[in-house]
């Protein structure tokens, strides 16, 4: 029996963004019936490679083949027509439309409600997903939205399904369910590309594994023949700093973890029976309480939409609470997840960005000379790589931007006069390393631990449970608007994230 050509083959793909080579002669062969894990650090080119396959990025060089035949893919519509489906990390659903409309989107001709509903029912039956055709997408949970995304791809008869970091937004139990489904889908003769940077996930479900590093394929082979160590080595290259996610599931008492903070240490940040409503009047936090003391890192876990967004901002003084009481110093450093949207002025200089700290309460004249000096020392202290204090924020790499924001929020250099903080320092951070490479991640983690050791109260939320476990002295879980302290145990946290006792 002759060997069938791969369902999807990407051959010798290169792509430059300006002077940066995002992909260098990268090849990937995905067989029908396989789950193929595509591994790599943030920035290694995994998503870019798959965007080439899905027509969202054009390759400078290289060929895409489906079942052996070369195909021209210039736009997502070409990829869809060729039988490729992609579930993006950030969902591409229209929140104000129904499940049926979202699934029908991109078709031609007349739109018949009956046929649309029928199509959704068929997919629900085939996949075992519970899908309500007439539900508005904005009312669905993140897990349910992901199932709509998959249904969308399947409605176009996708035979090759690309899943981009699908488990990042799911609680552990949901993630396992999804991976089991992917396995079944592949076993039925289809192909799945699973983009991830979690090794245990890849080894658990995949038939084959390909590792990208700096845009190049550095390893490809059967999953059965790979180990966590070999893959980690391939992902990081030689002499890379160790990183929590790439190591075996972390032991509970990491050597960097501090001995439990005495429960009589000063509470710096505290929420007492706090209730927060969103702009539509729905309660996002109900009677939530949490204490962060001087000299500890509290790790917060929870699935998206559980109320952590509101809890972090209430504690940082960024939103008002409807009921209950918040205790906090006047100035709380706050590093939000969406840095470009909420933390920086992309088109202004670093000095201008430094001036943002405390801008709301500042009076009178601004001394730019003082601010420039402050910015300079802040850059030196936190190793922010930029030509000068007048460099435009947008031109910095993601890691340097994040370090800059972190520096600004942690430093006392920029605060003078009545805004100067007392000894009580508090930092609230949301997904501190999303989008950063290994080195930057390690640096950010080290900074947070140093601040903790210095006596600051640190509250970290991460959607990556491994990161929470790696950093936290103490863990709390948000679920459906309530908060509770849990032991730092993967399984216990995972269950608490889904609301189980």
């Amino acid at each position, binding site marked *: 029996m002759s060997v069938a050509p791969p369902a999807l083959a990407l051959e010798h793909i290169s792509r430059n963004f300006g002077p940066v080579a995002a992909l260098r002669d990268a090849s990937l062969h995905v067989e029908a019936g396989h789950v193929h894990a595509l591994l790599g650090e943030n920035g290694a080119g995994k998503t870019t490679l798959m965007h080439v396959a899905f027509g*969202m990025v054009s390759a400078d060089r290289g060929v895409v083949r489906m079942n052996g035949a070369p195909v021209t893919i210039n736009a997502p519509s070409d990829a869809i027509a060729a039988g490729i489906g992609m579930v993006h990390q950030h969902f591409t659903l229209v929140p104000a439309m129904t499940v049926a409309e*979202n699934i029908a989107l991109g078709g031609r001709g*007349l739109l018949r409600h009956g046929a649309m509903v029928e199509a959704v029912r068929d997919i629900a039956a085939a996949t075992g997903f519970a899908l309500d055709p007439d539900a508005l997408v904005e009312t669905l949970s993140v897990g349910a939205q992901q199932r709509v995304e998959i249904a969308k791809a399947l409605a176009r008869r996708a035979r090759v399904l690309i899943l981009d970091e699908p488990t990042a937004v799911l609680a552990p139990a949901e993630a396992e369910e999804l991976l089991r489904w992917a396995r079944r889908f592949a076993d039925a003769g289809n192909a799945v590309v699973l983009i991830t940077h979690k090794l245990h996930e890849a080894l658990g479900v995949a038939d084959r594994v390909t590792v990208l590093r700096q845009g190049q394929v550095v390893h490809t082979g059967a999953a059965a023949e790979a180990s966590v160590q070999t893959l980690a080595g391939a992902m990081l290259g030689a002499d890379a700093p160790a990183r929590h996610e790439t190591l075996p599931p972390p032991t509970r008492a990491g050597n960097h973890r501090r001995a439990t903070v005495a429960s009589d240490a000063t509470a710096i940040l505290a929420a007492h029976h706090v209730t927060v409503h969103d702009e539509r009047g729905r309660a996002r936090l109900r009677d939530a309480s949490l204490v962060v003391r001087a000299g500890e890192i509290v790790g917060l876990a929870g699935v998206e939409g559980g109320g952590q967004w509101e809890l972090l901002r209430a504690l940082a003084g960024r939103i008002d609470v409807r009921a209950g009481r918040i205790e906090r110093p006047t100035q709380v450093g706050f590093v939000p997840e969406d840095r470009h949207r909420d933390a920086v002025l992309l088109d202004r200089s670093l000095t201008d960005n430094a001036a943002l700290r405390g801008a709301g309460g500042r009076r009178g004249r601004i001394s730019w000379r003082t601010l420039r000096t402050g910015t300079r020392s802040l850059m030196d202290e936190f190793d922010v790589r930029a030509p000068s204090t007048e460099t435009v924020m947008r031109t910095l790499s993601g890691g340097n931007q994040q370090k800059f924001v972190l520096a600004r929020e942690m430093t006392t250099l920029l605060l003078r006069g009545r805004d100067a903080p007392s000894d009580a320092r508090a930092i609230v951070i949301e997904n501190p390393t999303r989008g950063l490479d290994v080195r930057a991640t390690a640096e950010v983690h080290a900074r947070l631990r140093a601040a903790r050791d210095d006596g600051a109260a640190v509250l970290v939320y991460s959607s990556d449970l491994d990161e929470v476990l790696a950093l936290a002295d103490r863990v709390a879980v948000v679920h459906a608007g309530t908060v509770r302290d849990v032991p730092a145990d993967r399984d216990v946290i995972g269950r608490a994230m889904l609301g189980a006792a």
Partner: protein
Amino acid sequence: MTDALTPFLAATIRTATPLALAALGEMLVERTGIINIGLEGAVLAGAFGALAGATAGGVAGGYAGAVAGGLLVGAIFAFCVLVLRGDQIITGMALTLFAVGATGTLYRALYGTSGASLQAPTSGPWAVPILATIPIIGDALFNQPVITYVAYLLVPALAWWMARTHAGLALRAIGERPDAAAAAGIAVTRVRTVAVLIGGALGGLAGGTLVLAQAGTFVENMSAGRGFIALAIVVLGRWQPFGVALGAVVFGAASALQFAFQAMGWNAPYQIFLAAPYLLTLAALAGAMGRARAPAALGRPL
């Protein structure tokens, strides 16, 4: 009373027709997440195009010229905003200014500054058989220039198209989440370009209506803010064809009241009637916005 009603209704429809045409076009544009303040310019360019076209080729030529004028403004807008990715609001404002200057300059250059008003051929009313004989409303609604019937038909046609075709679904999706539409294989920029061009053409047609079905001549700056009012009507109509049509009729009625009051001998300062549409718009916008839900991507930089 009924004697006054028919002329009042007729005047309402007459005034509402250009507003509805322009607003329906802008509704399509805004449904793709783009806001074209240059609509006022498109209406004005359409009016001038109608004059130029009508002098050359009669009423039909006039409407062709009107569409061409509006299309030109739409095309410049599409190029600046969709190709160059310039700012929508500034581009739109500049295009309105451009249309004011260009039509004024061309008019004076071609027809002189003497002020002798140039007569353009007009399309008279055409009574729809049977319907026009309905008491009171028949003569008001169905004894109108043909362009009014075009507007009548456009409303249900657009409503059907938006709700019942995949293309309509794509249009609505682009205004909400352009990235989602793109990922679903929809050519977002192409759809937006087509929408902007159609919006320009309909704006031009609105200007053509002013010349060919109403005034019978071109006057400098004769759009007189109708494009801006159409922008407000889109909001009032909540981005729905029937809502937009209703909004246009309400504005038409407000203007028609002026004639009705004058006919009844009520002598209020005429500026109140001139300002009324704008005040009404402001009041209505303040009342409507809380409940209306704009396309999520409206006005966002591309």
